[in-house]
């Protein structure tokens, strides 16, 4: 016999997966728009707002499940983690919007070197997808992989930051290129952190322990 709670858990799982897939699409669109100079700010804003509303829906529904069914153990950890993950996905949406806004505000950047952003974007896209699939499959091992990838993202960001400062002294310095890259790298670095937090959530659901890295 199906527990009443299971019906609710299935619904909240569907909501969170919708959020995950939408956030992947939004970040991908934002990065593509930056790369190709396509203005997508209104569309990405709409998606970001949708994620924000979905996050509120997840929180409301999670609260309802707790109030009505008083879940414990893994059920409770799952609901708690879904609330955290929903926040993470809504942040993905917000950063996607921020990326689109950089393009809208100071873009396009046809002559800028985008190699650093491209490199980091590749890793971060992989991280977002991994965070979504780890949540879908409740793969506790994903958190370790996400942390390794996060280290490389952090490293790229720090190096670029240093480089940007030294480059400002050069004559051919193009502020638009460096500022846009720096902002986008910063947003990607934040997305990477949130992907790790989602990995932590999965680890917590499965083991009951916080991530060993925390």
């Amino acid at each position, binding site marked *: 016999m199906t*527990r009443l*709670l299971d019906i609710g858990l299935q619904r909240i799982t569907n909501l969170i997966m919708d959020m995950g897939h939408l956030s992947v699409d939004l970040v991908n669109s934002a990065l593509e728009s930056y790369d190709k100079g396509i203005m997508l700010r209104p569309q990405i804003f709409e998606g970001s707002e949708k994620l924000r509303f979905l996050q509120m829906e997840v929180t409301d529904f999670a609260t309802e499940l707790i109030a009505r069914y*008083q*879940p*414990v*153990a*893994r*059920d*409770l*950890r799952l609901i708690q983690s879904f609330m955290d993950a929903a926040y993470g996905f809504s942040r993905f949406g917000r950063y996607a919007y921020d990326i689109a806004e950089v393009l809208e505000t100071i873009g396009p950047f046809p002559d800028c070197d985008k190699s650093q952003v491209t490199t980091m974007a590749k890793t971060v896209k992989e991280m977002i997808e991994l965070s979504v699939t780890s949540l879908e499959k409740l793969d506790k091992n994903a958190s370790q992989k996400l942390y390794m990838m996060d280290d490389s993202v952090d490293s790229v960001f720090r190096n670029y930051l240093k480089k940007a400062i030294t480059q400002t002294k050069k004559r051919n310095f193009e502020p638009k290129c460096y500022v846009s890259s720096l902002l986008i790298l910063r947003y990607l670095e934040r997305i990477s952190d949130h992907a790790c937090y989602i990995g932590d959530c999965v680890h917590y659901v499965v083991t*009951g*322990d916080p991530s060993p890295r925390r």
Partner: protein
Amino acid sequence: MAIEEPIEDKEEAVQQTAERYKVRIEKVNGWYGSKRAIRDVNLNVKEKTVTAFIGPSGCGKTTLLRCLNRMHEMTPGAHADGRVVVDGIDIYDKSIDPVIIRRRIGMVFQKPNPFPTMSIFDNVSAGLRLNGMNNKTIIREIVEESLRNAALWDEVKNDLDNPGMSLSGGQQQRLCIARALAMQPEVLLMDEPTSSLDPIGSSKIEELVRVLKDNVTIIIVTHNMQQAARVSDFTAFMYLGDLIEYGSTNQIFMNPEKELTERYISGKFG
């Protein structure tokens, strides 16, 4: 009363036990004739804490509870073996008078059971009188204190001569708790004390449990897992006569070690 520790270490052992554990349950088996209802249960209960026994019907939690003040042996054909050590004293020692044990280890039952022909006052004072207390002033003081501790005084202070049975179900249960408290027990056993009460009566008993644990060690059997989660510091999960898992209530309800515990508390069986 026999002390179970070697004589040279007696004082220290008793002191240490008193500080660490009020009740030690060691390899306790509970029998109904030849049928073993609980098997080799080991469990230590800390002083001034609330411990909940949970598990599906027939798992042995009430039997175990009744072993803790030798009520189990009052059932025809029933007996227990193993050791139940309270403050270093094995209550199953042959030299121990079970009546004295039941005075130190009070019990509250599933259904409120005030003495039907007695007034509220007499219900609370009955145990004192039976134990030879005659000083009316002291009796009155103890009755008032017990009713206050059972959070019933304000509701009945002007009706002490009314029959105990005239009270509501929840009040009757608090009257029974007052009756148990009048004997100044060190341990209070509660066997599903709210199962026959409405939510308001239940919540008053739960609040009372939290208050009483400042002075008394409480062990409660409950079918209501949310109640166990709310009121207890430690939880023991039993299944088919075995103690499956015992730990802090937070650990049991957030991250149980055993799959069986997880399945039970999550409502996946039972």
